[in-house]
């Protein structure tokens, strides 16, 4: 996506990609000093970006048994790349990291999604459901644990009608289930999704009903455009605003952490 076209108020005409915009939006969800459970792919960069800009005191925890208080020493594509182990605060067991999560010591976590519904339930396992399986996806990994146990989690995914469905075929990672009170009723100790960062905008959840509400749209995107690509009549926030564009500094940092544009490419 080119932003320049719909970006006249912006002094300079640098390009950014949808991935760069999404990663920047993800980074903005991290507050300084927070404990962040960093997931695969885009969140790896989101954490590095936040850490290098507004959240220098954030701590990153990784499910494979890593805790870091500084960004990786070199660009990485997976959390197991050696620069992510180098000078880590702790190298340990998955169960130790999951214990911190289950105790409620993780403030925020990030999950990628394939199929999501209006209450933020995620399916990354069986498209079509287990009975009428159409597509088998890789599965939960740690996503179910993050969605179950973090104080809040953020979903990052492509915004397409086939992915935004009224009800998911299979709940891999619980959101708000059928709405208010559901998490408590099934025995989840806390948490729930606080935002969905998509290719079109940023969605949050109604504190009462726990249903999705469009909270921000990306530059060049219209509310109607978002509605078209959503499988149910998506609620819209009264005070809807525009997702901030990545600043030149943010783009420079992303380039440093992803020099080959593996994650940030068009």
């Amino acid at each position, binding site marked *: 996506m080119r932003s320049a076209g719909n970006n006249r108020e912006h002094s300079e005409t640098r390009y950014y990609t949808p991935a760069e915009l999404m990663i920047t939006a993800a980074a903005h969800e991290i507050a300084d000093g927070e404990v962040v459970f960093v997931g*695969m*792919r885009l969140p790896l960069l989101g954490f590095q970006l936040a850490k290098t800009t507004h959240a220098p005191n954030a701590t990153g925890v*990784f*499910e*494979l*048994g*890593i805790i870091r208080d500084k960004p990786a*020493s070199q660009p990485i*594509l*997976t*959390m*197991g*790349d*050696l620069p992510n*182990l*180098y*000078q880590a605060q702790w*190298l*340990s*067991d*998955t*169960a130790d990291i*999951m214990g911190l*999560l*289950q105790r409620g010591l993780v403030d925020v976590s990030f999950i990628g999604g394939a199929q999501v519904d209006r209450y933020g339930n995620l399916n990354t*396992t*069986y498209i079509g459901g*287990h009975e009428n*399986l*159409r*597509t*088998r*996806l*890789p*599965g*939960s*990994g*740690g*996503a*179910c*644990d993050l969605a*179950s*146990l973090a104080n809040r989690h953020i979903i990052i995914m492509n915004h397409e009608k086939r992915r935004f469905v009224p009800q998911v075929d*299979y*709940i*891999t*990672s*619980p959101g708000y*289930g059928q709405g208010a009170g*559901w*998490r408590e009723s*099934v*025995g*989840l*100790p806390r948490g729930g999704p606080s935002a969905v960062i998509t290719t079109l905008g940023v969605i949050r959840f109604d504190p009462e009903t726990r249903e999705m509400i469009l909270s921000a749209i990306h530059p060049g995107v219209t509310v109607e455009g978002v509605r078209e690509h959503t499988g149910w009549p998506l609620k819209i926030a009264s005070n809807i605003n525009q997702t901030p564009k990545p600043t030149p500094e943010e783009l420079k940092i992303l380039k440093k952490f992803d020099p080959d544009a*593996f994650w940030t490419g068009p």
Partner: protein
Amino acid sequence: MPNSKLLSLKLAISRFVPDGSSVVMGSAQETLIPFAAGHEVIRQRKRDLTLIGPISDILFDQLIGAGCVRKVRAAWVGNVITGSGYNFRHAIESGLIEIEDHSNLTLSMALRAAALGVPFLPTHTARGSDLFKTNPGLKDVTCPFTGQVLTAVAAINPDVTIIHVQRADEYGNAHSWGNTGITREACLAAERVLVTCEEVVSPEVISSDPNRVITPGFRVCAVAHAPWGAHPSPAPGHYNRDHQAFLDYRDESIRPQAFAAWQARWVDGVEDQAGYMTLLGEERMAQLRLKVNAPSAEANFGY
């Protein structure tokens, strides 16, 4: 002194991974995945294996594509940097193999239960999820103190856990470093542990740092020397992750014919790990070797 457990990888796999075995591999997630051992399993045409692991990166997909697998008990099966594992996906969609759906936490608890010798462990994860529908090893249990309902995870007792480590002696004492994932519980839970290593060293090297030992040597059934045995996954202290190999594998595994060609070249086409290293080539290995050395501070275990 006990007898030596040093065996060729060929002999170690043929002796300790019979058809029908349940096998843990990839217990450290993205690091130290025992690819050399997995490829030997393929060469020996093992059948009806149950694979157990959190996220196997592409190793499980390779074993499934080669027809070695009857069942998978895992949290995630695919290619970490590209997404889907096509052999896995096809095998599940066509009902060729069974899957027991875990999360990383439930799999860790299942192996910790076995390591501790208890039939289950409780957790708060997966409440309200559909993992309960596709994993018979998850049930409700009520805390006798608080009355809370938790997820009970049934113990998983593997026949063998296969790990790749940096160095081991001939008696099964092994040093491993880096993130450990679920390796500790996977080793303690298994009936036996099979170790492949970058280096075979003297017992004194290992006993100089008993805290670095990954699992007690008396439970290890075999040690096989397999340099570059984790490639293309990274081995702390030895080589970085070979991202290109994972990117290539995506294309080499989308269609069955393509996968057959991959298997013919990278597995059946080589006799052993020496052959694999020749195929890999010195130039590529040089690119992957460490550029920055970072030695650990010394610890004194004297008296």
